[in-house]
């Protein structure tokens, strides 16, 4: 119960995403499509940051939605819908990362994008608005950051992605990952320290050399 006498379920019902999910639970036509449309960008983005592979990210995001659909009749709004969604995503991503450790994947080369079209890195190289030197630096930096992220352990990586790209607070990350808030604080501190160690050479680059990409509004 909250100070105003509201239960967490009542608070959750104020979340518009919870209301969509309740319509999915009741098999209302079009509700599931609305849910997929609403969350696909965030989910695919997070999965891609976690796995570093666009195809795999789409497959896993799709699997998350299928699990949501399959378990719709058991859905009980207890917190924000996105917390529940990313809890499922976290479990699937961790399984994928662990299985990948057992079966190493050979990454595709940049010109092997497949049916999804050119990847953002490829697009950056061909972007005529920036000079060739900046493009190369940007691409290199992007690869270095990706490498630094891949160097984190799975839990640190998940915490970093949720905090940075989903704007989740420590308490919500703790709920998604099944940890205490204190553990998340420690996890993020170590993750940031590891990232700094991996990116030392880039932290003190001239800030004018490479323009920081604008924040995504979504």
């Amino acid at each position, binding site marked *: 119960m909250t100070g105003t006498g509201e239960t967490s379920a009542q608070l959750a019902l104020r979340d518009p995403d919870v209301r969509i999910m309740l319509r999915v639970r009741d098999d209302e036509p079009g509700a599931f499509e609305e849910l997929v449309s609403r969350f*696909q960008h965030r989910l695919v983005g997070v999965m891609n940051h976690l796995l570093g592979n666009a195809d795999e990210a789409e497959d896993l995001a799709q699997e998350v939605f299928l699990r949501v*659909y399959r*378990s719709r009749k058991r859905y009980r709004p207890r917190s924000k819908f996105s917390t529940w969604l990313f809890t499922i995503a976290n479990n699937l991503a961790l399984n994928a990362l662990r299985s990948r450790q057992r079966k190493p994947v050979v990454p595709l080369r940049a010109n092997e994008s497949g049916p999804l079209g050119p990847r953002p890195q490829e697009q950056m190289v061909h972007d005529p608005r920036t000079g060739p030197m900046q493009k190369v630096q940007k691409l290199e930096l992007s690869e270095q950051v990706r490498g630094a992220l891949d160097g984190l352990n799975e839990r640190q990586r998940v915490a970093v992605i949720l905090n940075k790209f989903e704007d989740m607070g420590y308490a919500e990350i703790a709920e998604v990952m099944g940890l205490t808030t204190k553990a998340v604080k420690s996890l993020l501190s170590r993750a940031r320290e590891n990232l700094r160690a991996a990116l030392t050479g880039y932290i003190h680059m001239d800030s004018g050399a490479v323009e920081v990409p604008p924040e995504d509004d979504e």
Partner: protein
Amino acid sequence: MSSRRPITEQERADLVAYLDGELSGEEARAIEAKISLDPRVRAEAESLKKTWDLLDFLPKTEPSPSFTERTLSRVDPLAAPAEPAGEEGQAEVGRWLVLAGAWGLGLVVSAVAGYAMMRAMLPRVAGERELVRDLRLIENKRYYDQVDDFEFLEKLDHPDLFGDDTVP
């Protein structure tokens, strides 16, 4: 004011939490004071912030245009065999069973009551066995009709009234 000792893990965690906006007002003010007074803490906070900003260089991914369509096409075959509804589903089944039981019981009670009413309402026709049993009563009915009550009949049966015609 600058200390020479290295920043501890706890101090770094607090610094990161401060940058993430996770500290209370009082805690945040304490960290701000440290940052303004100690150049090492300030440099630490700055490098941690720059590290975080570098994550913006990660390539952004958008789902392919057919993502929704492909996801929905995978859901369609699932539409019929939705997973059991867990506790709620069991409760639903239980409610149906109770309802069906109540209906069954109601039907049995109605049938029994209907049968009893029919038996009570229909005119009763005496059976052959009952006629044989009450034969003497039927034969003497015309006499019994003359009698008002059983007390009178018992008096008629008294030996002093009619006596036995015994032969001395």
